């Protein structure tokens, strides 16, 4: 089991992240660029020193800021695949994979078998004699993975493993990598900016925002119960944070739910109620809707974003209070004459609100 609390200051940026991960599972650290994702991996690998916190693997301390303990990277049982793979340009694929075995003093007669096994595991046994510059992005990625895995690390760190690939290669590698990671016995920590990758790979997902954990949990937990605006935006839903409405108070807005109205506030704390409304539940109209919808907000269209693939759906960002995102068909956009600045009413039923605490 990997147990880590990572604190690092760099100029104005402060990283402070804690998480645990068990063998055979993949923890995805997801966040925007600059959220501190690569720092997390460098601190785990020992390439950077902790300012605070600790890294412990199976009860063995690798780093402890309090007593200045720092096991150097080459003595850690941790494999690290950098974002651009960093294959040694002067060595063949075979020599790249053999590098760690030789450096670690593996008996020469065992090296050939281990390298071939590892190249077979990632599916490129025929590329052993090539130089890195002769490989495609996907092949380089596999070679780098083989180079890390041949050492049988107990922790595997992957930094944006798919981001250097073109879109076609990305899909193929994603499927294969997922199959491979599920078979590996080690703790995998996978860093990405992509919410899709987070949900595909992450048995557990740690959402990083400005160097802090915005939310951590299983992918189901994250999808069903986002707890911060950042996470909600990541998974593309509307999130409201509030408290059960009380008579006499005057909140900025309140949303009716099957269990009663919730006053929307910008704070979270004891008694906080979370509400999500799927963008597809939100109906737009140019005139005030009559009849069943119980929640109606007025506002102007800020942005129209066609959803890939093909733009069969369009996300409509509104400046309502609270801000809402609706998802409608291109036909609806045309029929309503939606464009930036047009004032609309956004309505959704109480039954369309998912409420949790």
């Amino acid at each position, binding site marked *: 089991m990997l147990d880590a609390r990572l604190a690092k200051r760099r100029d104005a940026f402060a990283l402070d992240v804690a998480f645990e991960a068990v063998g055979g599972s993949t923890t995805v650290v997801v966040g925007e660029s600059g959220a501190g994702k690569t720092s997390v991996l460098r601190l785990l690998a*020992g390439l950077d020193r902790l300012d605070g916190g600790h890294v412990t693997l199976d009860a063995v301390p690798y780093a402890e800021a309090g007593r200045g303990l720092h096991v150097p990277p080459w003595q850690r049982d941790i494999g690290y695949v*950098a974002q651009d793979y960093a294959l040694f340009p002067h060595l063949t694929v075979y020599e790249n994979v053999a*590098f*760690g075995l030789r*450096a670690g003093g593996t008996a020469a007669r065992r090296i050939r078998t281990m390298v071939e096994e590892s190249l077979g595991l990632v599916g490129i046994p025929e590329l052993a004699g090539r130089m890195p510059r002769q490989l495609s992005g996907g092949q380089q990625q596999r070679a780098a993975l083989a180079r890390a895995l041949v050492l049988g690390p107990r922790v595997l760190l992957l930094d944006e493993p798919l981001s250097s690939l073109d879109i076609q290669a990305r899909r193929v590698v994603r499927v294969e990598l997922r199959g491979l990671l599920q078979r590996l016995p080690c703790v995998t920590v996978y860093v990405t900016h992509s919410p899709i990758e987070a949900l595909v790979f992450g048995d557990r997902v740690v959402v990083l925002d400005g160097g802090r954990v915005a939310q951590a949990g299983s992918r189901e937990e994250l999808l069903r119960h986002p707890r911060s605006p950042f996470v909600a935006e990541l998974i593309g839903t509307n999130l409201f944070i509030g408290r059960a409405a009380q008579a006499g108070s005057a909140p900025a807005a309140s949303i009716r739910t099957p269990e009663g109205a919730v006053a929307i506030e910008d704070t979270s704390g004891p008694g906080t109620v979370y509400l999500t409304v799927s963008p597809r539940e939100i109906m737009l109209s140019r005139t005030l809707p009559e009849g069943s919808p119980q929640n109606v907000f007025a506002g102007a269209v800020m942005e129209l974003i066609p959803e890939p693939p093909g733009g069969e759906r369009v996300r409509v960002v509104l400046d309502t209070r609270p801000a809402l995102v609706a998802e409608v068909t291109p036909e609806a956009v045309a029929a309503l004459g939606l464009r930036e600045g047009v004032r609309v009413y956004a309505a959704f039923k109480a039954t369309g609100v998912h409420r949790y605490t």
Partner: protein
Amino acid sequence: MLRIPPADLVARLRDPLILQALRLSLISSFAATVIVAALGLPIAYLLATVDFRGKRVLEAFIDLPMVLPPTVAGVALLTAFGRTGLAGHALSAVGITLPFTTLGVVVAQAFVAAPFFVGAARAGFAEVDRKYLDAAATLRAAPGYAFLRVLVPLAAPSLFAGAAMSWARALGEFGATITFAGNMPGVTQTMPLAVYLALQSDLDAAVALSVLLLLVSLTVLLSIRLTPSRLAALAARARRAPR
């Protein structure tokens, strides 16, 4: 240069004194280059990768022979390694004498040639992308192993270039050699010294020696620059690789 017929040139080169000087020059300059490379590699590595107290002072001392008049360098060496010098005293205790010996020639050449190698090697090390060293570190490679197997091969073109410059400087060394090691044929008389000596008695001989020295220098520099060209291209690609 052309006023001596080639046959005459060849005949002059049969002169044992000249052959001696040529052999001594080649041996001593290569020996000096080897010493400079062996001592210079770790120093260049330290300068390129580590910040420490007194780094600037060390840098200044390493560059000193480059700006010092060679005769002054010779005097400095004589003061240090002479019979009464501190280092000379210690060395004579183990039976080594430097002044006015072939070994002294090598030391004088290494002393003046060192900055050329250290400067080039340091720049070469600094140019290697850190990501390769990070990768090596996470692949069980302690710094020494990573240095030999990653940093040195990737910086090889700069190291070769530095060694070539260093060797050229050692081959042409005059002032420090004559001051520190003297001018004894067969022992400390290198080609530049022989040329200078010949110039005073026999202009044709001096020209012949100069032509020879020119050809030897050109051959060695060309062969050093041509062999690692593939390596150089490889390392250049490595440095250009997207981050």
